[in-house]
């Protein structure tokens, strides 16, 4: 699927869409699991422990996810660089808002904001998790690994992070950018994959709007819930 000049623009966009689809599915399950922390701390602990210790998830799904995220970012940067080069001289007077949405034109900005947030998110959760499990070697998932009755640590760690109002605010702001990214990205991925139909595309657009609002709103709700009740 490439030419003598390398990957064509359509293949680049298709791969962007594929990685996008994958991330949409990941995001949905992430939101659903996080929501368990609101309705049942025990269930959240159990599911988190399973996700954090299951070899299939840890050593197959997690690397695939990391690759998907990395690929989506790198391809986004490449596409943006190429697109900038396609118009070296800009218009002196331009009114892009007359023909396109802010979200569709600023995927790179919302994407960068999400990337910056990912840095904080990894610092908060992923890096400490790797440290406990693979450097300290504690796979027990217990608050106190020497005391079996201490209970699983995941809910406690999550709630603890959202004690800080600044961190909670940053998370909420990041979810706003995530929403803006998804409001264009969801339906755009279908278009890039060549899926467009007079009957189904209006439904996909509505579903994309619902997804782009409900999933980030779910994350916002979880953050605020733990900030208030933590």
């Amino acid at each position, binding site marked *: 699927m490439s*030419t003598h000049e390398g990957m064509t623009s359509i293949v680049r*966009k298709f791969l962007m869409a594929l990685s996008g689809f994958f991330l949409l599915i990941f995001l949905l399950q992430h939101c659903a699991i996080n929501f368990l922390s609101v309705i049942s701390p025990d269930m959240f602990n159990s599911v988190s422990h399973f996700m954090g210790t299951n070899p299939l998830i840890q050593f197959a799904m997690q690397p695939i996810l990391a690759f998907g995220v990395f690929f989506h970012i790198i391809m986004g940067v490449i596409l943006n660089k190429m697109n900038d080069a396609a118009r070296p001289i800009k218009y002196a007077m331009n009114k892009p808002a007359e023909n*396109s949405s802010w979200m*569709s034109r600023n995927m790179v900005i919302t994407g960068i904001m999400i990337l910056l947030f990912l840095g904080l998110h990894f610092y908060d959760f992923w890096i400490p998790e790797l440290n406990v499990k693979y450097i300290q070697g504690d796979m027990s998932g217990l608050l106190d690994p020497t005391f079996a009755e201490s209970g699983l640590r995941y809910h406690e760690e999550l709630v603890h992070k959202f004690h800080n109002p600044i961190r909670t605010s940053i998370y909420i702001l990041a979810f706003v950018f995530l929403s803006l990214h998804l409001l264009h990205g969801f339906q755009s991925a279908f278009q*890039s994959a060549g899926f467009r139909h007079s009957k189904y595309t209006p439904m996909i657009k509505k579903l994309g709007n619902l997804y782009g609002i409900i999933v980030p709103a779910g994350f916002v709700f979880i953050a605020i819930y733990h900030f208030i009740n933590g």
Partner: protein
Amino acid sequence: MDLILKIWRQKNKEAKGELKTYEVKGVSPDSSFLEMLDVLNDDLVNKGDEPVAFDHDCREGICGMCSLYINGEAHGPDRAITTCQLHMRKFKDGDTIYIEPWRAAAFPVVKDLVVDRSAFDRIMAAGGFVSVNTSGNTQDANALPIPKDDADKAFDAATCIGCGACVASCKNASAMLFVSAKVSQLALLPQGRVEAERRAIHMVEQMDHEGFGNCTNTGACEVECPKGISLENIARLNREYLSAAIKAE
């Protein structure tokens, strides 16, 4: 109407251009935008100045020659029209109007407001045709039954006049709407299926080779297209290309 025009002036392809300000007086609101530029050029010629170079031909919205990025939009502040169909009543007396050429690396400025759109010709030459037997025994096209929906969609795609407003409006200077229309008008018909795979691959390769940007589905092209070419065509091109590329040896 009295107007202030800020027009891009550029001596030739290599020269560094700039926006220059002109005043034009007594323009009829019923005149077309190109006629307003004719009035300006008459003025300039009478003063011994160089007239503004701009593309135009049929002046009835079908040739695709007139371009112009007017006040920040391709073909100006109206929908489903070319610049020759834009009337001065869309502006107000005393308005300042910015007039710029299409901006894209693949459409270099030749002079003032004239750009070189031959990249589109090269894309067409790469595959935007059907090979037919010209022996004189050509089969009547009506002998092949074609579903009405397909015929209508092919005709809609074929209304693309290759003006380049899609490229000019796209934030990425992508030519996907143009290429997709040219691929669709043939891919939807049985006569076009024979070379469909080769066509999609060659035209997309040529499009990339010319330096157009990547489509990011903003939809600006569809809104600014004077012929209302739908984004449905871009999705079709994506399908045509991807399936052809998978099968290609």
